[in-house]
C-alpha cells in the first residue's frame, strides 16, 4: 500500500488499512478516542500519493525527514505541527505509519482551515491540506497556494532545517543553497523572520520559483537514503531525531547552527554541512587535508559535474587564489561551492566573494571534521580514491624504515597513476614519490610540486639525522632514504652532511688496513650508482669520494656490495647483497678496529643496529628497484608505441 499510489484499489486499500490502523492506534493510545477516519476519494488519492512520496521503500513507515519536510511545507507554525504529530499518534508509536500520516495530513488540512488540532476536527469534511513549498507538480495537485491561512514564516526548527538541509545537501550536488530572496510564490514576511527561514524553506520555494530541478527532492532524498549505506548510521540517527522531534530536542551539533542562520541569505557562504561534504570529497581525492589536490586530479573531478569547460575554467581561476595549479582545502571548498552554485543556476561572480576566500574559509573551518562517509556515487570513479586509501595507509605508518615496505605497494600504484605523483606525503614516502614521479610520465604539476616536496625532504633528512645514534651513522641514512631522489636540494644536503662529517670521519679510515679505505671509497660511489634511478651518480660519487678524501673509484656494484654493511662507512645500502656475507665481512672488519679505536664496543653496537636497519632498508630498496625497473621497461615500451603512432600520423597532419 505504501507505494505506487494510483487510484482506486490502492486508495481503497489505503482507506481500509487506514481505518484498521487508526483503530489500532486508537486502541493502543488513549487519546485518539476510537476514530474511524473517513477519507474521501480525492483525499485518499492524495494522501496515498503523499505517503508514497515520503515513504520510498516498502516499509511501513514514512521517512521522518520527508515527513518533516512535508509538514513544514504546509506552513503551519511549528507548535501546530508538533501538536499534529502528537495527536496523530506518531510520537506514541515512534514512527509515521500510514495511519499516523493520514491523520496528520487531515489535521494539517484542519489547521490550515483554521480548526484546532484535535481529532474531532478531522471528522468533518475538510479541504485538502496544502503544501506550497513542494515541487511544482505537487503544487498543481494541491491547489492554489494562494489560499493559505496565515502564511506564517516562522521558524521551523533549526534542528529540522539542518536535518533536511543536510540530507538534501548530501544527496545531490544539485541541492541549491538558495537565499530566501529567490522568487517566491508567497509574499515574504519581514526580513528578520525571513532570514530565519531555514534553507529548505527558501530552497523549496526557490525551486518552485526558479524552474529548476523539479527533480523530486524527496526522490533525491530517498536515493540519498539508499545510497548512503555507510552514512546511514550517522544520518539515520538524525532522521530518527527529526522524526521523533517535531518537538525541540536538538542535537548538540545543530544548536550551533542557529547562530549561522543569519548567514543563509548569502549564497556564497558555505554552511557547515556543505563544508563537511566538501571536506569529504577532498578527502576522497587527497587524504591529507593539509596538502593539495593537483590540477589534473581536480580537473577530472570537476569535469564530472558536467559544467562546460569555460565555466569550469573560470571557477578555477576564481578559486585558485595563489595560482599554483593546485587546490588546497579552502580553495577546493570554494571551487566546489562555486560549482554547486552554478549548477543551481547562479551566475558565477567576476571575482571571488569574500566568504569564499581561502583565508576566510581557513579561519572558519575551525570545527573538527565530522567523520561522514564518502559519497561513493560521486567519487567512486575517481582513480585517486583508491590511491587515497593507499596514501592514508602510508600516512598512518610512522617515519620508520619499515614504512618503506608498505610504501612499496603504494609506490606501485603511484607509478601507475602519475597524476598523483605530485601529491606530497610525509617525509620518507615523498622520496619514493619523487622517484615514481620521475619514472612515470611527468606532468607540469609534478614539477611544481617538487619545490614543495623538497622542503619536506629536507625535514626528513633532519629526522634521519636525529635517528642516528652516532656521528658516523647519519649520512647513510639520508642517503638511503633519498637515494632515489633526484632533486638538487637533496644532493646539496647530502653534500652538507658529508662535509659536516668529514672531520669526524677523517680519523677512522686512516688507521684501517689498506684494503678497507679503498673499499670505503668504493662504497660511497657505488652505493650511489647502485640506485638505477639516480641520475647523478657521478657527482655524488665525487662528493662521496671527496668526503672520504680518497681516490674516486668507479667500482662495479658487486665489489662494494660485499662491503655494504661495512661498519665504518655505516652500512650503505645496495640492493643485491647477501646480508650474511656482509655481516661476516664486516665482523672481521670490525675486529681489527677494536684495538685501534677506543669506542669500539659502542661502535659495535651501533654497527649492529645499523646493520639491521640497513638490511631492512636494503630489502625494501631492492624490491623497489626491481619494480621500478619493470615500470621503466613498460614506460619505454609505451614511449616506443607512441613514437610509432606519431610517425604514422605525421604524414597525415600537414600544418
Amino acid at each position, binding site marked *: 500500500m505504501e507505494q505506487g499510489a494510483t487510484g482506486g484499489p490502492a486508495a481503497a486499500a489505503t482507506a481500509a488499512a487506514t481505518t484498521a490502523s487508526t483503530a489500532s492506534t486508537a486502541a493502543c493510545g488513549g487519546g485518539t478516542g476510537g476514530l474511524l477516519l473517513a477519507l474521501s476519494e480525492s483525499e485518499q488519492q492524495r494522501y496515498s500519493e503523499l505517503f508514497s512520496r515520503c515513504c520510498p521503500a516498502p516499509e511501513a513507515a514514512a521517512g521522518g525527514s520527508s515527513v518533516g519536510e512535508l509538514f513544514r511545507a504546509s506552513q503551519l507554525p511549528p507548535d501546530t505541527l508538533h501538536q499534529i504529530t502528537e495527536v496523530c499518534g506518531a510520537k506514541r508509536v515512534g514512527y509515521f505509519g500510514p495511519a499516523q500520516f493520514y491523520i496528520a495530513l487531515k489535521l494539517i488540512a484542519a489547521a490550515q482551515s483554521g480548526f484546532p488540532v484535535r481529532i474531532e476536527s478531522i471528522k468533518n469534511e475538510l479541504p485538502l491540506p496544502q503544501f506550497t513549498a513542494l515541487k511544482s507538480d505537487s503544487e498543481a495537485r494541491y491547489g492554489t497556494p494562494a489560499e493559505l491561512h496565515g502564511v506564517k514564516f516562522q521558524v521551523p526548527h533549526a534542528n529540522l532545517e539542518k536535518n533536511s538541509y543536510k540530507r538534501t545537501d548530501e544527496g545531490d550536488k544539485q541541492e541549491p543553497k538558495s537565499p530566501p530572496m529567490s522568487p517566491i510564490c508567497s509574499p515574504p514576511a519581514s526580513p528578520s523572520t525571513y532570514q530565519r527561514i531555514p534553507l529548505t524553506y527558501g530552497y523549496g520555494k526557490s525551486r518552485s520559483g526558479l524552474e529548476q530541478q523539479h527533480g523530486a527532492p524527496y526522490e533525491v532524498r530517498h536515493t540519498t537514503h539508499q545510497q548512503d549505506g555507510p552514512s546511514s548510521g550517522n544520518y539515520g540517527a538524525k532522521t530518527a531525531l527529526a522524526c521523533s522531534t517535531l518537538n525541540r530536542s536538538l542535537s548538540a551539533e545543530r544548536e550551533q547552527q542557529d547562530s549561522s542562520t543569519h548567514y543563509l541569505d548569502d549564497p556564497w557562504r558555505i554552511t557547515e554541512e556543505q563544508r563537511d561534504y566538501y571536506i569529504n570529497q577532498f578527502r576522497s581525492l587527497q587524504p591529507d587535508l593539509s596538502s593539495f589536490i593537483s*590540477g589534473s586530479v581536480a580537473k577530472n573531478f570537476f569535469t564530472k559535474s558536467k559544467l562546460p569547460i569555460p565555466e569550469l575554467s573560470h571557477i*578555477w*581561476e576564481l578559486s585558485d587564489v595563489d595560482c599554483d595549479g593546485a587546490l588546497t582545502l579552502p580553495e577546493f571548498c570554494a571551487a566546489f561551492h562555486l560549482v554547486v552554485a552554478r549548477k543551481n543556476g547562479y551566475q558565477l561572480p567576476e571575482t571571488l566573494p569574500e566568504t569564499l576566500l581561502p583565508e576566510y574559509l581557513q579561519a572558519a573551518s575551525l570545527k573538527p571534521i565530522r567523520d561522514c562517509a564518502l559519497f561513493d556515487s560521486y567519487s567512486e570513479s575517481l582513480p585517486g580514491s583508491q590511491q587515497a586509501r593507499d596514501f592514508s595507509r602510508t600516512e598512518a605508518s610512522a617515519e620508520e624504515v619499515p614504512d618503506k615496505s608498505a610504501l612499496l605497494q603504494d609506490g606501485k600504484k603511484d607509478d601507475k597513476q602519475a597524476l598523483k605523483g605530485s601529491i606530497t606525503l610525509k617525509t620518507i614516502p615523498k622520496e619514493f614519490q619523487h622517484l615514481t614521479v620521475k619514472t612515470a610520465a611527468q606532468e607540469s604539476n609534478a614539477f611544481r610540486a617538487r619545490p614543495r616536496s623538497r622542503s619536506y625532504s629536507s625535514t626528513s633528512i633532519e629526522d634521519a639525522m636525529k635517528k642516528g645514534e652516532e656521528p658516523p651513522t647519519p649520512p647513510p641514512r639520508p642517503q638511503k632514504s633519498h637515494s632515489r631522489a633526484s632533486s638538487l636540494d637533496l644532493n646539496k644536503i647530502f653534500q652538507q652532511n658529508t662535509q659536516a662529517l668529514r672531520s669526524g670521519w677523517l680519523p677512522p679510515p686512516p688507521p684501517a688496513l689498506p684494503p678497507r679505505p679503498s673499499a670505503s671509497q668504493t662504497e660511497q660511489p657505488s652505493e650511489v650508482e647502485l640506485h638505477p634511478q639516480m641520475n647523478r651518480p657521478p657527482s655524488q660519487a665525487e662528493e662521496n669520494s671527496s668526503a672520504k678524501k680518497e681516490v674516486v673509484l668507479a667500482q662495479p656494484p658487486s665489489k662494494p656490495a660485499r662491503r655494504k654493511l661495512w661498519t665504518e662507512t655505516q652500512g650503505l645500502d645496495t640492493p643485491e647483497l647477501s646480508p650474511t656475507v656482509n655481516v661476516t665481512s664486516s665482523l672481521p672488519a670490525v675486529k681489527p678496529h677494536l684495538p685501534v679505536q677506543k669506542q669500539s664496543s659502542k661502535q659495535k653496537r651501533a654497527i649492529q643496529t645499523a646493520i639491521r636497519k640497513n638490511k631492512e632498508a636494503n630489502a625494501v630498496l631492492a624490491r623497489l628497484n626491481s619494480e621500478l625497473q619493470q615500470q621503466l621497461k613498460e614506460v619505454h615500451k609505451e614511449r616506443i608505441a607512441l613514437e610509432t603512432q606519431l610517425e604514422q600520423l605525421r604524414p597525415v597532419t600537414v600544418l
Partner: protein
Amino acid sequence: LVLACVICSPQNYPLYIRSIPAENELKFHYTVHTSLDVVDEKISAMGKALVDQRELYLGLLYPTEDYKVYGYVTNSKVKFVMVVDSSNTALRDNEIRSMFRKLHNSYTDIMCNPFYNPGDRIHSRTFDNMVNSMMMQVC
C-alpha cells in the same frame, strides 16, 4: 597609449587579441602579424647562443610614423606583441618592460589552470580584466 596587445602561440597563430580603438582593428592585426616576422628574426639571430641567454624582452621591433611595436617572447616561444601610439612619448622602455612582465605573469596564471589547454584561445575573464586595466592605465 597602448593600442593593441596580442599573444601569439609558438606556431604564430593568435591566442589573444585585444585592441582599444574600435576602428581600424584589422590594421592592428595586420601590423602585429607583420611584426611577428621581426620577432622571429630576433629569435633566430640568437640561435647560436643558448636559449637561456636570450633576453625575453625584445624591445622595439619597428617604429612607424603612427605607432611603435614592441615584442616579448617567452622561453616556450609564446610571443607577446604590443602596439603603442607614437604620440605618447611618456611611455618609457621600463614601463613597457613592466607591462610585458605583468602580461607574462598573467599568462602563467592562465597556464596553471588545468582547464586551459595550451594552444587554445584565451577566454579568461581575469586575464581580460588585467589587460584592460593595464592598457587603460597608460592611456
